[in-house]
């Protein structure tokens, strides 16, 4: 016992401890296909999202024409050989608009997930560590969570020029309180753990504690939460565009296309149908990915929700 304590002290004195490997690389490389087979939801979700990303990136080479090219002589033609998804009221090719629209929806979804996670992480860490700020900050977060997210996004969009950036900021503002609550919860639980107590007693500074103990434990729940935020953001963006408060009409997005097709949906339902299918499938894939990740990363969470 005495010997171990002495060598521990010696280790602290002689060399800086290295950051432990969180995920052994070799195990992951061999086990990827086994992992995917055991967790089909992750496989399906990730596959569909990958297809959508590829479609968005390779849009100009997938048989599309200029999505903003107006040609009123061929208004609202039903789907055919020449126009795979038909044309809308201004004669624009719906297939091209849908394929290019994937860019906006995916961009908004991922950006919001990233931004909300980053801001929520920062605020959650602050609230968890700085005790006298905890009460105040959490009350403010509660207040912000009491405003239905879509209404908050609508209010923000009413005050700013329509642009993709503003949409991203508006939706992120509505979503980050959830993340901060989550991170704060993790911090509070971890602060009670013996090994964190030991680290503090050994003199580890707070940034190192955060880096080595807190952050690895937030990765799993934050990743799951981030996928749900991504799905929610895509839907909110579509709703905002649908009611005219979202991305500018020049840039095609799935919500925009459906908004344009609103007036004619009873006679030309195909205008609303195709972007609707693409949006639903993408959001479904993100949700499946989130569920699969949750089940894989922490089975205890699976029982909770």
């Amino acid at each position: 016992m005495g010997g171990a304590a002495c060598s521990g002290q010696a280790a602290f004195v002689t060399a800086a401890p290295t950051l432990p490997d969180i995920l052994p690389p070799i195990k992951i490389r061999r086990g990827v296909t086994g992992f995917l087979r055991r967790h089909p939801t992750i496989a399906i979700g990730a596959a569909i999202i990958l297809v959508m990303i590829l479609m968005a990136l390779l849009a100009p080479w997938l048989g599309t024409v200029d999505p903003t090219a107006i040609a009123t002589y061929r208004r609202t033609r039903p789907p055919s050989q020449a126009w795979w998804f038909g044309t809308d009221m201004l004669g624009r090719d719906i297939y091209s608009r849908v394929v290019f629209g994937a860019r906006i929806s995916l961009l908004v979804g991922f950006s919001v997930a990233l931004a909300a996670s980053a801001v929520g992480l920062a605020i959650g860490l602050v609230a968890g560590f700085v005790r006298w700020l905890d009460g105040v900050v959490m009350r403010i977060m509660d207040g912000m969570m009491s405003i239905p997210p879509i209404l908050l996004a609508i209010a923000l969009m009413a005050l700013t020029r329509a642009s993709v950036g503003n949409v991203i900021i508006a939706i992120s503002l509505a979503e980050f309180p959830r993340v901060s609550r989550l991170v704060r919860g993790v911090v509070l639980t971890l602060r009670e753990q013996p090994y964190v107590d030991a680290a503090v007693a050994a003199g580890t500074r707070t940034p190192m504690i955060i880096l080595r103990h807190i952050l690895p434990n937030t990765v799993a729940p934050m990743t799951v939460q981030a996928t749900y935020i991504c799905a929610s953001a895509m839907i909110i963006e579509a709703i905002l565009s649908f009611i005219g408060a979202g991305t500018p009409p020049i840039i095609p997005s799935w919500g925009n296309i459906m908004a344009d097709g609103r007036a004619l949906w009873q006679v030309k339902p195909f205008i609303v149908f195709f972007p609707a299918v693409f949006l639903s499938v993408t959001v479904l894939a993100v949700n499946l990915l989130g569920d699969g990740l949750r089940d894989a990363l922490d089975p205890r969470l699976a029982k909770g929700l």
Partner: protein
Amino acid sequence: MLTYIVRRILSTIPVMAIVAFVVFALLYVVPGDPAAIIAGDQATPEDIIRIRASLGLDRPFLVRFGEWVWQLLHGDLGTSIFTNLPVTDLIHQRVEPTLSLMAITLVLSVVVAVPLGVVAAWKAGTFIDRAVMAFAVLGFSVPVFVVGYGLAYVFALRWEWLPVQGYVPLADGVWRWFRHLILPSLALGCVYIALIARITRAAMLEVLAQDYIRTARAKGLGQRPILFVHALKNAAVPIVTTIGIGIALLIGGAVVTESVFAIPGLGRLTVDAILRRDYPLIQGIVLMFSFVYVLVNLLIDVTYTLLDPRIRY
């Protein structure tokens, strides 16, 4: 018990204060000049000055906030820029359709979702369970207006069972009022049903694993008393919590559903307000909805003591 209720009510006051502050501060937090954006592209400088004065942006923040809170406490939610009518009046005109829609959606969703969740938990791991969970994930993923258009296309246009759009006030006949609200409620309720079914299943699974359920089964109690008398009552707290939290989904979804089904309610009012950038109206509606949401959750917290006698604060 009474002290608990009073204390709970008092604790919502800071939350509401923060909600009011956040909604008010949005005007100041936004980059650029909100008055110019509200005035629009063809505005003259006089328009912008006029709008800035009516929004109170030319006066100091705290002074304006104080005035605004004072107005709020007197029940004045501001004046619409576009119509010059008090916001409270505009809301009052449109409240009945939205209230009807949300009430029917709430009842429908709970009545459908809770049994679904209970059955899924009871038959955990079987095809029924997986089917319910698959439906739940689908319910989360398909946006409200897509479901709305889909339902309207199939049930109203193709098969003509139900009216396509529109709203009939309750005073004009209960059956007609209900018929017009069936499809919108189903559309709005999809996400809500998915959420409640999942929570019900999770809560029931936890409860069904408890020892007292095993005792009940050993005693020879039948399936229905076990499920509904013993298990569901104990699982009720998280389920009811989620029902309360999910009302935010209903409020947000009402905006879209009313647009799809042409229901002249508060959601449509919000959409019109956005298109005209009538910010005081939007502000008033957001504030009102948030307060209603906080109050509903307060009510639900208070009913906890009824559901679970062990909860005594």
